[in-house]
């Protein structure tokens, strides 16, 4: 082999080495796939976190007894929740009483919007929905957490000052949920659903 041949071989070898190197870089870059966990506002991590916050919020409210008063904070004369919009519900992710304060602290400061809806059983056995909080249409990445509350005939409505009134559910006339079982002390079983999404 002449010296010129060796030079050619070295050049070719250089090209091949460069190709191998570039291929490896391209290959490595291609391996980094976009997964559901890749950072974005619709990250599964964030959704999981919001769902856990919503579930924890409901669990805590149910355990410390602040969930039930929120369901019973009803104005008999207007047929809506006390201090709510003309449509009878609150329009931002907050509400009066302890449960509303918890909602506000859990979501609003973190840039998360929420709806809270109350699903009850109607007299015919189907399900009806009453909005407690309606902040808008949830996005595709919204999460949902729910808790069940049993209402009884002798549960009383709460006044605007947050104190129990003398009006029991059995005597209430405009309360959103009907007595689903008139022959029993159970008035209705309500499912509280918190739907949260990133604004």
């Amino acid at each position, binding site marked *: 082999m002449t010296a010129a*041949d060796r030079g050619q071989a070295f050049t070719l070898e250089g090209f091949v080495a460069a190709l191998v190197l570039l291929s490896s870089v391209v290959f490595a870059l291609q391996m980094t796939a976009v*997964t559901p*966990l890749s950072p974005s506002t619709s990250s599964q991590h964030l959704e999981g976190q919001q769902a856990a916050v919503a579930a924890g919020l409901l669990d805590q409210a149910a355990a410390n007894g602040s969930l039930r008063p929120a369901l019973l904070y009803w104005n008999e004369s207007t047929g809506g929740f006390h201090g709510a919009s003309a449509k009878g519900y609150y329009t931002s992710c907050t509400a009066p009483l302890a449960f509303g304060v918890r909602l506000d602290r859990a979501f609003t400061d973190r840039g998360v919007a929420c709806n809270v809806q109350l699903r009850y059983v109607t007299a015919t056995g189907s399900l009806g929905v009453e909005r407690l909080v309606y902040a808008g249409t949830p996005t595709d990445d919204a999460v949902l957490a729910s808790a069940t*509350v049993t209402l009884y005939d002798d549960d009383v409505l709460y006044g605007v000052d947050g104190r129990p009134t003398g009006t029991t559910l059995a005597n209430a006339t405009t309360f959103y949920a009907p007595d689903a079982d008139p022959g029993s002390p159970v008035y209705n079983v309500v499912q509280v659903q918190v739907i949260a999404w990133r604004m």
Partner: protein
Amino acid sequence: MAHVSRTPDPAPGGRTADRAQLMLATALVLATLFVALALVMNAVIFTENVATQADASGRVHEALGYRNVANEALTRAIADADAGGTTPATVRSAFRAEVANWSDLAASQAAVNGHDLTLTVASMTDGTRLVQANASRPLTNASGAADWTLVDGAAGVRSFALTLTASSLAAAPGDANVTTLRAAGAFEVGLTNSSGATWRVFVYRDSTVSNVVVVRVLNADGSLAPACNATATNGTVTVGVSNASVEGAPCAALGFAARNTVQAVAFRSGYAARGTYALEAARVETAVDDGDVVHLGGPSVPASRPTLYAATVSLEYAGPKVGYRTTLAVVPEAVHG
């Protein structure tokens, strides 16, 4: 590619052929390395993805949530059945009806999410509620006897508390022994466990300190436990036998009640105490009623009414991926004594 001809290399040692082999080997190693790396990377992504999914824990959380809310509803159902029933049979049927109604309503809610929820009453323990509501009446039986047995042969006693008027209690020194207390005619509650061991709770007024009520327990082994004292608020003192408290403050001497299955409760020197009391015994009312109390009696007499002492209810939850079955043992205020 490097020089791969078999032409002998003018350089010493045949370097060209060796280099071709080296290139090939390196390429193979690199290729294997990349494939291995890709596998590891994919495994990491998959693991992280699966591990952080809230799916499984969320569904379990839902099943446990139903269990908690069912527990509350069942406790309330026992209270409702107790309040409404006048015979053990009506109490039982009222409980069954409320559980069935609640189960139907909750199942309607669960069905929307594709879940099935069923509650079935597995067993019920009949009980008797013994109560005296008249605060100015002595703790005697219906016919005025001061030494009498409220219940015996019970499978347990719970929610036992007395609220006594301090001025009605016999007076004795705070550190009095049993002989002195009996001589003073102090009011005494005897509680016997299933092995026949008896604890005696003396309640009396401290003769040396004004307005202080003393609770002293004579243990089953004959020793006298340290006294629990309380100042009579509004002239009365509440002795929680089941929750081991005197006027709301813990009283270790009464702790025996929670550690034993009490099967008999008796009063002695009932004339030396006026006030109210209530307890739930695990024995059907017809067996408890021996004339000492009045069945469904009014506030002026010691009264008894049939109740449910406890119940076990089977809960079955079936979700798309999680099935959960458990038996809920419901004993309201589950502190025995």
